[in-house]
């Protein structure tokens, strides 16, 4: 027996190694572990950022999960799902083909909330359920985890999502400033309507978005100021922007939307800034919001230069000290000088948000629906314009260095024969289709995106004219849907090339009806809305 002891030991050791390799080896069988990093608060206004992995470097996720395979097996088809009861059904986040023993996977969730989240007027605490399974996972293996988070009301803006006790510097305080772009709503129908009124009734025409002339853009900025001043808008007077790293009360605030500022006829500095930015953007101008300690003011960027106005100069009748538009411009431009001086000195409290750049980086505007009641409120505001004698004075921007006072640069002249101000760089073709005799002319922008069509129809009725145009275009494989509202018409043209969104005006020319439309492909319409509004307003 003693002679066989070595062979017995070898065989026993071999059997042990063989068995242990099958039943899990020396390592103790562990588990799959899950660690969650969650976002404390979701701002409904920024829901288009939270649902986009590419937006703002992807830093706005609902949660980030660290999944570690602590077992000694390869896990196959690891599936991560989550849901937010009441908002998002079970959604598959990721399927990982294989996870080796010890391997870590980092998974982020970008929840796609419905657009109606922007109608949320109260905050709430919601729950997220997470489930992780893999091929061959038994009931006990499946990972189920839940956590709660807060969805604020649509007006809340948090300057930072870093807890107050963890603030290390100004980059933490200004962590969310790009999200201000979500509160700038140029496509809100109410803002568009207000903008059109400023362009038509306050400024009697405006072309800054097309001509890119800073003087014309400055005149537009002054027009916005005059519109707010003449409607007796009130600056609410509270400081909202953090002034120091311990200014905790200002890290989060309720921010009225531009439509609420217009119809409520009151706003704080930041709210007035988002209103101005929305109107400027709607007119095709690049808006900027300047943030300084305790204050914010709006402006724009054109041809590499910055311009600003002190929007809060409207003061309030109870507060006194209402500035004239010239004084507001002077104050704004002086603040701008101070801004760049401080920024050059490296003061991190002086920062700006370029709204269109933020939009390009994924901080897109919240989506808002049209509202007849609010339109009527805008009409009431507009009706007040001109009641005071100040409206008799034309709005003129005088450059500080210039000693002469002259009105803005010339706008593109209205082409009398076509009733619309076609920019000189555009290509105009008269009678482009002999088979469509009612189509008098087509004009197209150099980038081929925006176009104008002029129709002359031998009838005295706008509906008949539209029906005739529709039947002509139908024979060309194009289907038109439209809605007439007084002398304005809005519609879409569908064809194999895609959908064209357009707006137009109906002009009575004696025995004829002239319909002039301006449009762009649906995917470019918002981007081109400034030019389209401009051209629309030039139709005479």
């Amino acid at each position, binding site marked *: 027996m003693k002679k066989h002891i070595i062979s017995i030991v070898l065989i026993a050791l071999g059997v042990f190694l063989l*068995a242990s390799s099958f039943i899990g080896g020396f390592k103790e069988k562990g588990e799959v572990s899950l660690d969650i990093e969650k976002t404390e608060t979701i701002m409904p206004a920024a829901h288009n950022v939270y649902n986009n992995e590419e937006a703002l470097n992807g830093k706005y996720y609902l949660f980030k999960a660290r999944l570690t395979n602590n077992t000694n097996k390869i896990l196959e*088809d690891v599936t991560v799902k989550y849901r937010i009861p009441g908002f998002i059904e079970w959604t598959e986040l990721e399927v990982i*083909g294989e996870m080796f023993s010890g391997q870590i996977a980092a998974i982020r969730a970008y929840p796609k909330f419905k657009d109606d989240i922007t109608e949320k007027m109260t905050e709430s605490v919601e729950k997220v359920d997470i489930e992780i399974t893999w091929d061959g996972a038994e009931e006990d293996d499946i990972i189920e985890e839940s956590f709660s988070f807060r969805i604020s009301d649509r007006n809340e803006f948090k300057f930072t999502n870093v807890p107050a006790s963890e603030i290390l510097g100004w980059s933490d305080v200004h962590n969310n*400033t790009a999200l201000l772009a979500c509160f700038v709503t140029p496509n809100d129908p109410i803002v568009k309507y207000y903008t059109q009124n400023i362009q038509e009734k306050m400024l009697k025409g405006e072309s800054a978005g097309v001509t890119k002339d800073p003087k014309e853009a400055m005149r537009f900025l002054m027009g916005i100021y005059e519109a707010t001043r003449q409607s007796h808008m009130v600056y609410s007077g509270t400081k909202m922007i953090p002034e120091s790293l311990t200014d905790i009360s200002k890290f989060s605030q309720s921010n009225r939307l531009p439509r609420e500022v217009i119809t409520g006829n009151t706003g704080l500095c930041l709210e007035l800034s988002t209103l101005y930015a929305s109107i400027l953007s709607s007119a095709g101008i690049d808006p900027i919001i300047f943030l300084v300690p305790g204050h914010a003011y709006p402006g724009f960027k054109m041809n590499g230069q910055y311009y600003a106005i002190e929007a809060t100069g409207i003061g309030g009748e109870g507060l006194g000290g209402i500035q004239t538009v010239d004084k507001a411009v002077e104050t704004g431009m002086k603040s701008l000088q101070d801004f760049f001086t401080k920024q050059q000195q490296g003061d991190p409290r002086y920062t700006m948000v370029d709204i269109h750049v933020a939009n390009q980086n994924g901080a897109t505007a919240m989506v808002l629906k049209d509202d007849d009641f609010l339109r009527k409120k805008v009409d009431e505001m507009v009706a007040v314009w001109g009641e005071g004698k100040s409206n008799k004075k034309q709005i003129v921007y005088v450059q500080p260095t210039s000693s002469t006072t002259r009105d803005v640069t010339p706008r593109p002249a209205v082409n009398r024969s076509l009733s619309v101000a076609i920019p000189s760089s555009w290509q105009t073709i008269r009678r482009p289709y002999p088979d469509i005799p009612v189509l008098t002319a087509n004009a197209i922008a150099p980038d081929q995106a925006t176009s104008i069509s002029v129709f002359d129809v031998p009838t005295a009725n706008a509906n008949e004219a539209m029906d005739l145009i529709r039947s002509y275009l139908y024979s060309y494989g194009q289907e038109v849907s439209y809605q007439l509202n007084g002398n304005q018409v809005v519609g879409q043209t569908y064809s194999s090339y895609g959908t064209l969104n357009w707006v137009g005006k109906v002009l009575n020319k004696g025995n004829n009806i002239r319909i002039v439309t301006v449009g762009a492909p649906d995917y470019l319409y918002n981007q081109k809305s400034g030019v389209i509004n401009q051209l629309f307003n030039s139709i005479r």
Partner: protein
Amino acid sequence: MKDSKRQSKYWVMLVLVFCVCILNAQQMQQKIEMRIDSIGNARLDITMKMNAQQWQQWIGSLGNNPAALKREIEREMPGYFLDNFKLEKDDMNRSFNLKLDAYGVCKIDKRGNWIIELEEKDTQLTELDSHKYMLVNSPPEYGGQMQQTFMITLPETANNIKTAKDAYGKDIFKFTMEDPSEAGFSGLLPWIGLLLIGGGVSWFFVGKKTQKA
């Protein structure tokens, strides 16, 4: 100002941390080494040298506040779990070295391919050897003021290394790799066991023959 700059996720991830230095017109060189291990984690090693003014600015903003530096890096790399930060400053030579681990950089797709996303289109990758690649980048956000040299080292066990494009046209590394547990000692366990059993049986019969003889 930072928010107004286009931010791509991975390759300019660390530039923003040093963006305060961009105020100076002199071009800066940054060297980033990324070593991927056998389970898809990365060890990053960043080295940078500055001129006197740049150094003063960096020290004033982040260099003397490593916690803020760590947070900035975490902010620029939200896709990964970062750990083991180690900052070494060389005041004499106005340079620093920062090391950190990034977990979960690689993923395995449904076909068993390991994937590393480069998050950039049309990257000019140079193959230095079968597992080492170099990429020189000058982020347009900084107007050519910053030159980054990336060295990417893939695991020794990686095979069939290819560069490809993902669904968005961005460049990716694609490769296959054995399960490290099979490739290592634990993968040899059944074979050692069989060898020992075989050895034991042989020893038994050899002992028996010797006994008969």
